[in-house]
């Protein structure tokens, strides 16, 4: 790969930003660059300006649902509307809501994974493993036959 993997994290809680960073640095094991947007509108603008610019585009998104200014679901919809390859990027919804309506909305919006923020450290850091696995499967799809269904199925139940 020509450049490091680019990740956009849309999260307003600095405590969670720290935890996501730690989860990624602990488990991802792929060179990556993390860009943080503290509200939904900032994320929206970053996506808009990166759309169609391969060097600036993101490979993976981690989106909180309950974001200021613009809710996470709008950000998700914006990603899926991109003209370039970002429309097919991996999107994880990471939220403290465990409600079925939120899960359904994330799935309908095209999220690849729904990660319910756990209230203990070790489980939260597992987010890094989830990102790593999704990334590896996606990388595998580019070179061999797809195995996407298996990961998709597991993802939405977590």
């Amino acid at each position, binding site marked *: 790969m020509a450049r490091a993997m680019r990740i956009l994290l849309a999260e307003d*809680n600095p*405590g*969670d930003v720290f*935890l996501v960073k730690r989860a990624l640095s602990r488990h991802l094991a792929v060179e990556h660059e993390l860009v943080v947007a503290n509200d939904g509108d900032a994320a929206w603008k970053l996506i808009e300006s990166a759309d169609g610019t391969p060097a600036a585009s993101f490979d993976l998104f981690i989106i909180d649902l309950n974001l200021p200014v613009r809710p996470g679901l709008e950000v998700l919809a914006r990603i899926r509307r991109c003209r370039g390859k970002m429309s097919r990027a991996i999107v994880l919804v990471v939220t*403290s*809501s465990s*409600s079925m309506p939120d899960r359904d909305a994330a799935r309908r919006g095209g999220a690849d994974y729904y990660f319910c*923020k*756990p*209230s*203990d*450290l070790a489980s*939260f850091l597992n987010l890094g493993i989830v990102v790593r696995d999704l990334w590896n499967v996606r990388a595998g799809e580019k070179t061999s036959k797809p195995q996407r269904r298996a990961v998709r199925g597991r993802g939405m139940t977590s």
Partner: protein
Amino acid sequence: MANANLLRANRELEELTYVASHDFREPLRMINIYTELLMQECGQKLSQEASEFAGYIHYSVERMEHLIQDVLQYSQAIHDGRQQQLGPVPVRRPLDSAIGIFRASLDSAAAEIEIGDLPVVHAEESQLSLVFQNLLSNSLKYAHPERTSRIRIWSTESPDFQTIHFADNGIGFEPEFSERIFGLFKRLHGREVPGTGLGLAICRRIIEAHGGQIRAEGESQQGATFIFSLKGLGDHGPGYADIAGRGQSG
């Protein structure tokens, strides 16, 4: 008009409770995780006393999480009560599902359950299961330390109502507390028995939303009996007769 205002005020209160219950969890999650991180980072430097303090934080967070979970269930019961889809439910079905949920705890307590003939009632099945879950949890929590837990469930019938009796042989309670135990956050025990004091309040809320009533009878050290009435199928037509036939009282 006054009634409409009251209804709206109630609805707003319910929505507020619902949203608050979700949002209250956020800071707790942070407190928990960052206490853990603090412990990890300072591990060796922490004194015995400081570790104890961290233990108190952890205990309180867990307790608060349980409280919120129960408040959420309670407000959900109110919310669902408003939009519930009543239909004929053979009481045995939600009871069995509740027993299934508590299977592991019932087995490890070696509890004996005796179930008589149960009727078909006019109810919302998942809500009725919630009532049984709370009653089972209650019986397990207040089991008598010196005897095997025995839970009996049976029914009696009157022209308009089916009455379900749920009795255990646990530590019971003083008869003067038979009303107080249904109050919000009312408990008769301290920290030695886990719980938030919402379980029976949830039961009462659900049964009353169904147009029924619930009360408790008990005696200290002699066990408790919870008695609730629900509408039978009565006038709902002969179409239900075949299911209702199974449901004669025992």
